[in-house]
């Protein structure tokens, strides 16, 4: 069953900016879906339309067969939203922030309180329940936003840059939590600045640029389309480079560091065989960027312009 079905969605802002140019998109129930694109690609506009924060110009949006134009309240009831910008009343307590949100969805006080406590405990915010939001750290605020987005038990969770500004440990713990919720049946739509995050979490990825979907495919298929991947090699000592061929090209970054562009289909064993024959001793090796990022750059062609999702 389709959790989300978008047909020919267009948005032109009053200033004349065409943010979405006929977007078609489908997300299946239970998917962990990533929407990636550079700054200004139209991601936030698309999410804004889904969540009722932006009025669409034309097109059709359905969430579990409920049409946004026909029954916006039924659509909203099925969505949980964590926006990119913090949108709290900073003077309100954490408890009230989550509890009131449940109330807005019509959940009675007793049930709302039970869910609020559960979520605050799950997201390690229970000891901050009585604290005003302004006293929380950046990471805690993000987790509180997630608790607020989940309190009405939505069928689809929309996350706009959920881990922006979080340290690695917190980001990873949030990934684990989201994966658990996804495994329990929650459909998740994610935009993220960290393409590594999309590669690790999402089983389907769409890449949007200038209001148009460039690619929409399972993550595995997309990664299979990579023409090459770049690796950074740290050398034990200064060495002569092996000669370039069609499969592998080398660049010297500094006397003890080289980059190797490895064509799709070439194994690491083959690369190391070439290096061994050239008597190049390698201390360590790492990918220069994650694979999705390489594909993203390849598709959008805007390397150095400021990647984001």
């Amino acid at each position, binding site marked *: 069953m389709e959790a989300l079905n978008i047909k020919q969605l267009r948005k032109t802002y009053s200033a004349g900016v065409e943010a979405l140019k006929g977007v078609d998109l489908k997300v299946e129930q239970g998917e962990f879906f990533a929407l990636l694109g550079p700054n200004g690609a139209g991601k936030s506009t698309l999410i*804004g339309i889904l969540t*009722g*924060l932006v009025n669409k110009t034309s097109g059709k949006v359905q969430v579990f067969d409920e049409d946004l134009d026909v029954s916006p309240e039924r659509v909203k009831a099925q969505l949980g939203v964590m926006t990119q910008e913090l*949108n709290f009343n*900073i003077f309100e307590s954490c408890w009230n922030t989550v509890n009131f949100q449940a109330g*807005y969805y019509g959940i009675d006080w007793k049930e709302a309180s039970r869910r609020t406590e559960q979520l605050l405990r799950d997201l390690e915010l229970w000891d901050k329940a009585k604290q005003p939001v302004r006293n929380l750290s950046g990471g805690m605020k993000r987790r509180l936003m997630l608790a607020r987005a989940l309190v009405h038990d939505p069928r689809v969770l929309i996350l706009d840059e959920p881990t922006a500004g979080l340290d690695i440990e917190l980001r990873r713990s949030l990934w684990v939590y989201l994966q658990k919720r996804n495994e329990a049946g929650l459909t998740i739509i994610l935009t993220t600045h960290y393409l590594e995050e999309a590669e690790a979490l999402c089983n389907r990825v769409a890449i949007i640029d200038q209001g148009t979907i460039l690619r929409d495919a399972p993550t595995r298929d997309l990664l299979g389309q990579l023409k090459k991947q770049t690796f950074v090699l740290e050398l034990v000592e200064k060495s002569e480079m092996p000669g370039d061929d069609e499969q592998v090209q080398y660049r010297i970054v500094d006397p003890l560091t080289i980059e190797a562009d490895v064509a799709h289909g070439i194994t690491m064993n083959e690369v190391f065989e070439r290096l061994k024959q050239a008597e190049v001793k390698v201390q360590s090796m790492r990918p220069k960027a994650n694979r999705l990022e390489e594909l993203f750059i390849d598709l959008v062609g805007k390397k150095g312009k400021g990647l984001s999702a």
Partner: protein
Amino acid sequence: MNAYRLYISWLTLTRKEVMRVLRIWTQTLLPPAITMGIYFVVFGSFLGGQIKEIEGYPYIQFILPGLVMMTCITNSFSNVASSFFSAKFMRHIEEMLVSPMPDWVMVTGFVAGGVVRGVICGLIVALVGLFFTHIPIYNFLIIAFYLLASASLFSLAGLLNALMARKFDDISIVPTFVLTPLTYFAGTFYSIQMLPETWKKISLANPIFYMVDGFRYGFLGVHDASLMVGVVLLGGLNLVGLALSMHMVKKGVGLRS
């Protein structure tokens, strides 16, 4: 949403608004008590003793209903204008916009918060007034109608102002340049029978005059203008304000791009 869920949704917003009023009581409830206490001292005790009775009542008794009404409408207005604009400014209005809460629940929830603050502030002023004079009650239902309908009307006005406002300055324009002059020229401190004919006619074009006049009738049993005009005007303006607010929220004016 079924009726019960709608009720919970409305109650949550109203509760949140009332809790806000109580949480920041030094900004919301204390100032009118102090300001109007000073009014009672200066206009009631110091000057009032020098002024002859108006329509058969001591000056302090005559002005008291007007002061209660003035407090009620300014507080109702500023409560909704300030709360709603803050929610827009800090973007936590999005908590409601992403939820299935219907537009009418959002509008009436904020208005209920404004009405509660307006009525509480009015009661505080009346209680302060009791230290200075006896307060007669001619018709409690009239008092309740005028107080609630006026608070509701100016809560709606505050909401409309907040919807259109783009910066904090914009929500002080109406109270400063519209509300204050209209309340001071609404017969709060005098009977319009004391005015020259031209000013009397101008006063009759001021909607707040009818609120003060009708409200005072509820206490003293005297009035300067037709009560029916006041009732129809209040009811009509409330309906217009509600329809306009609903329309603007539905269209997303000042809320959605």
